[in-house]
């Protein structure tokens, strides 16, 4: 029997069918649509989009975030139950992307939310999203 730390025990609850709450601005929505469709069908892996952050394990955040919307994203993040994970999709979300000189978009997502995994790209490939989830599982399994 492997002796695990409390954190490792908590985090291992993530290894199951992961439920997603998505917070998408602007074109960010289009980035996840292929994932739901038949070709990349994420429900094969038990990934489904839930209606409330209280049921979700993972927060997908995509599209440029404005100073107004990031406040709502924070509230959503706070409502999620532990253990929780934030996956940032696309370059606009992380750095402002092509809106790097806009007065209204945020420029560093990590200033506002604890980001677990970055998936760069414009838009990111659907496979990259699966890989991000798989990597999180990998890290959790390595936790002692």
């Amino acid at each position, binding site marked *: 029997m492997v002796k695990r730390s409390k954190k490792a025990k908590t985090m291992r609850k993530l290894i199951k069918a992961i439920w997603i709450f998505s917070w998408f601005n602007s074109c960010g929505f289009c980035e996840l649509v292929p994932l739901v469709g038949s070709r990349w069908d994420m429900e094969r892996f038990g990934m489904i989009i839930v209606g409330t952050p209280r049921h979700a394990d993972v927060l997908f955040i995509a599209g440029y975030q*404005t*100073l*107004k919307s990031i*406040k709502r994203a924070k509230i959503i993040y706070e409502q999620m139950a532990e253990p929780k994970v934030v996956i940032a999709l696309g370059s606009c979300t992380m750095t*402002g992307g092509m809106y*790097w*000189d*806009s*007065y*209204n978009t*945020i*420029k*560093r997502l990590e200033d506002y939310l604890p980001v677990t995994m970055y998936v760069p790209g414009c838009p990111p490939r659907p496979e990259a999203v699966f890989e991000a989830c798989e990597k999180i599982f990998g890290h959790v399994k390595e936790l002692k």
Partner: protein
Amino acid sequence: MDTKETGLLDEIKSKFKVDGRVQREQRIWISTDGSKLMEVCKWLKDGGFTHLSAISATDWLKDGKYELTYHLWSYDDNILVTVKTKIDRKNPSIDSVVPVWEENAQIHERELHELFGVKFKGNPDLSPLFLEDQEDVHPFRKDFNWREHVREKFYNKENEREAVYYD
């Protein structure tokens, strides 16, 4: 030629002593000054112009003026009346048309207050719409240096990754 447009324009001109012209079929432009705006608007609303499509502002930097444009549509006559009025850029305040068109006007005025800093006297709620927590930022003004603003607000020159934004 006597059309419904010229008829309406003559009526407005004789009643309020404002400038105006028929731009084309179904389009009338009226220029008025701020003090007459409320009278003109009230009269037009009672005359069937129930739909306020938009209020927009133009920043005439060299003249030191903001030009407010009210687009009004009448479903009875099928005419779009554009009421234009110029206000001082240094002290941009004008009577709100909320008493005339109510909620329809409220959201447009709120947006203009945020983007241009125009004060609408009598509007009950001019709280920020998109730019929450950003005081005295009026990004649609012609003299607003947004790149400078962004550098100050978001980027750190000492940070190696972000110093490129200062080149």
